[in-house]
């Protein structure tokens, strides 16, 4: 054996020439490994598999013609996209491969963008440059960002689309939650277009809190806000009993009395109000448009603009309720609630009704001794530490700056800058979702409080946060689709003051400023007749047959109505046309008749609208039976010609009518002068 080995050695390395030759051969073999590895690479294997797959299919010829071998890439330098995913994912654009079982070769689901427009990693993340499965999809030693789990995929859209998209419900919901739960009171979120995400939860000022509620209620509320109202957005700080005692002591101690002070409830109005009258006034005033209340069946009924009122009688003191109902501006000049002009009897009725809405259990077990100065001092320290003033106005504490980490680029945060705890998946989505789910799990000293979110809400918020990437910040502005920003429009003069007092902008939008609960009034002066407007302000009625909700009645005085109507008729006019340019007197009966034909046959308007309450059943659009009393003919005419031009986004279809048709239809509609919808219903 040994001899054999020796002989072998002699054969190959016996003398210098043999040794040189053998070493050279070995070197050559070793050098050949490099090109061999190149040749047997993973992507070639996938391309062979793909060719094998398509050969067996009916449209093999077409597919083979589309096939291009070698490394494929989507290269968009200005977006820093170099995606070689299509080297293996060869069937992305092949509609006929939608049914293929292998994900690698299946057609990409239909999306609004071309696949080559933004590449793959812009939305999916992962390593675009890679040409191996492991490197492209996973987090590896040299690459931190793996593929984004499919449930967060809408985060990709959110990098460019700052506005709400119908295709991204999850992202929209997450963004809405971030705004409505006031995340950005503490965290700064600067979007790619330079705008900041502003909260809209409107947390109340606590400067006069002692006028409004009791220390017992404050204590119970701080301990668990959701125990009082399930819809409460305030998070739970998990304060100990002692800490809650001290914070409530401080909150009450810093409160100063309102100026001028609240009036005590008069003895004679304190008699138990008629519950039926209260319910009916609550309904007539459309309080439920903004406020929710649990009904007898335990169902939550009402809007979420204002706070839930199920236990308002336990929370608010009677004299405060009375003052608030009479004029909310007194307690909170910044409130979104309109100033209803209730008379004294109505105030008493509504106050009594609200007082009867109690949750006695909420404060039943709270027994607090009078606060000591030490407790107040400790409570103040706790209030500062927990950042209470980030959301609430509090006497003696300034709003802290940058109280919590900025989240503008949280979606690109390197994992090595994050501290993970057990039970949290070691990935960015895992971290973000974990933080939203249970912030205190990351350390007892962390300040972020516990919000109450459903798992679905947590995923939505995580999606919205993951959209805040470096790419979203650094991409060229042309890529960005900005969100609609509210303008700073404020009407001037007496009418402006009045509109402010009535909080028109809580529901209506005018010149890009205001809410979306009620119609946009920017061109209301062109659209309607002054007489109709004054009638409506005096006694609002619903304009749509399927809608019970309507504008609340504010009990305006005639002078106020005149001021408003004058202002609106003068100022809110479109520059496009003159509202008086089409006098009704021009129309002749033949045109009216032609319009009727068009309405009922050619355009079948009755599918959605009601022109005649006796026969028509359309309920999608507003009833038109009183068009002649409500609108100006010019508005109707131009509306028919191009509805979207007058109100972008309206679902009224553009029928591309000829001028004559539109004129005839206008003549017909302007001839409709029956009573309002309610009047007609009553008949």
């Amino acid at each position, binding site marked *: 054996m040994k001899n054999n080995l020796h002989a072998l050695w002699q054969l190959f390395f016996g003398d210098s020439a043999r040794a040189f030759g053998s070493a050279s051969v070995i070197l050559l073999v070793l050098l050949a490994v*490099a*090109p061999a*590895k*190149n040749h047997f690479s993973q992507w070639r294997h996938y391309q062979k598999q793909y060719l094998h797959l398509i050969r067996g299919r009916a449209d093999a010829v077409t597919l083979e013609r589309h096939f291009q071998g070698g*490394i494929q*890439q989507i290269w968009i330098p200005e977006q*820093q996209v*170099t995606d*070689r995913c299509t080297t293996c994912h060869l069937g992305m654009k092949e509609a006929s491969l939608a049914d293929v079982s292998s994900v690698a070769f299946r057609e990409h689901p239909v999306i609004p963008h071309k696949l080559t427009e933004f590449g793959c990693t812009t939305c999916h993340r992962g*390593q675009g*440059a*890679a*040409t*191996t499965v492991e*490197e492209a999809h996973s987090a590896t030693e*040299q690459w931190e960002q793996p593929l984004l789990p499919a449930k967060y995929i809408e985060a990709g859209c959110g990098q460019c689309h700052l506005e709400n998209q119908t295709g991204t419900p999850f992202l929209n919901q997450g963004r809405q939650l971030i705004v409505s739960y006031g995340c950005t009171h503490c965290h700064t979120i600067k979007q790619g277009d330079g705008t900041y995400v502003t909260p809209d939860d409107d947390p109340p000022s606590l400067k006069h809190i002692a006028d409004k509620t009791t220390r017992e209620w404050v204590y119970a509320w701080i301990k668990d806000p959701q125990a009082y109202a399930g819809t409460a957005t305030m998070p739970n700080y998990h304060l100990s009993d002692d800490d809650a005692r001290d914070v409530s002591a401080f909150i009450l101690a810093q409160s100063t009395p309102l100026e001028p002070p609240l009036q005590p409830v008069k003895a004679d109005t304190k008699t138990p109000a008629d519950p039926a009258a209260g319910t009916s006034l609550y309904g007539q005033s459309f309080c439920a448009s903004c406020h929710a209340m649990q009904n007898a069946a335990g169902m939550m009924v009402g809007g979420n603009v204002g706070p839930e009122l199920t236990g308002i009688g336990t929370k608010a003191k009677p004299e405060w309720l009375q003052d608030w109902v009479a004029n909310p501006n007194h307690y909170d000049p910044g409130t979104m609630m309109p100033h209803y002009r209730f008379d004294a009897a109505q105030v008493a009725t509504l106050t009594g009704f609200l007082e009867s809405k109690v949750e006695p259990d909420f404060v039943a077990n709270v027994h607090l001794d009078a606060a000591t100065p030490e407790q107040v001092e400790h409570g103040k320290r706790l209030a500062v530490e927990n950042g209470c003033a980030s959301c609430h106005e509090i006497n003696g504490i300034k709003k802290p700056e940058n109280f919590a980490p900025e989240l503008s680029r949280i979606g690109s945060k390197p994992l090595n800058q994050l501290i993970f705890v057990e039970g949290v998946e070691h990935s960015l989505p895992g971290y973000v979702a974990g933080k939203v789910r249970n912030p205190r799990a990351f350390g007892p000293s962390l300040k972020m409080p516990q919000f109450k979110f459903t798992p679905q809400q947590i995923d939505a918020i995580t999606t919205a946060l993951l959209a805040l990437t470096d790419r979203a910040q650094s991409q060229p502005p042309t890529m960005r689709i900005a969100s609609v920003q509210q303008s700073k429009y404020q009407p001037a003069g007496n009418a402006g003051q009045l509109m402010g007092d009535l909080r028109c902008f809580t529901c209506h939008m005018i010149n890009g400023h205001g809410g979306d609960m009620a119609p946009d009034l920017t061109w209301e002066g062109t659209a309607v007749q002054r007489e109709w407007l004054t009638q409506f302000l005096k006694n609002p009625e619903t304009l749509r047959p399927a809608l019970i909700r309507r504008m609340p009645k504010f009990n305006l005085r005639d002078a106020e109505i005149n001021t408003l109507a004058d202002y609106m008729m003068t100022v809110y006019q479109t520059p496009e046309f003159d509202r008086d340019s089409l006098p009704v007197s021009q129309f002749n009966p033949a045109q009216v008749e032609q319009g009727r034909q068009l309405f009922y046959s050619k355009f079948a308007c009755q599918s959605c609208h009601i022109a005649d309450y006796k026969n028509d059943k359309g309920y999608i659009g507003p009833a038109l039976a009183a068009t002649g009393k409500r609108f100006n003919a010019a508005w109707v005419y131009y509306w028919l010609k191009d509805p979207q031009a007058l109100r972008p986004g309206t679902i009224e279809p553009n029928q591309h009518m000829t001028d004559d048709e539109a004129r005839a239809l206008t003549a017909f509609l302007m001839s409709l002068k029956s009573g309002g919808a309610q009047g007609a219903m009553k008949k």
Partner: protein
Amino acid sequence: MANTLDRLADQVRENRIWRSIFRSGTGESNLHRALTVQQNVFLHLFSVKARKRTLEFRATWYLGALTFGTFLILVITGILLMLYYHPSVPQAYADMKDLQFVVSSGVFLRNLHRWSAHAMVFLVFAHMFKVFYRGAYRPPREFNWVIGVVLLLMTLLLSYTGYLLPWDQLAFWAVTVGSNIASAVPVIGAKMRFLMLGGTAVNANALLRFYVLHCVILPFAAVVLIAIHFWRIRKDGGIYPGESPAEGDAK
């Protein structure tokens, strides 16, 4: 057969074109051999004659030659790598990825460069130890020892400047630490750091500076010093033959 080949080779060597390039011509005489070495720009660095003993493995373990071999590999692979590399912040790391994923045998090229660099550092040290323990640094070779030490420094600097070029976290922090060490020098520390980085932070300027150092200044300096190093071997009496009086004959 062999004769035919020899004759053919002689014919080529006697050719006018050949003679215009290699002027020494053919011949077995000492003069011819000496001329061959002297009149060639590359060979003239070397001695015309060497002791047979100094060419054996045990004399030097060929450490110097191996070091030079790795240097050649580094120059060749380095030039090839330069074809794929942009010394710019957004592109540098992406170029690494391209080498890894799409350049034919790109990984092989990078690895060859990297392992040769490691080998060169190792061999330089081994070469130094061999020279030191054999006592080959003593006069008249003391100046060549100094050149060798400078070449060691060149090797280390090449290694260090090359480390930044992939522009990954390792590179970034290595240079951050290195430049902070430089700034610890009294009085001129901060200036040195600024000079080194071309700014106050490890960024685009530092990357460009290290690239130029790695690909131009240091290799050029190394080539010049290597040439002097080789030339001095001849001038200092050839490779150190060892303590005992010469055993082998000159050849």
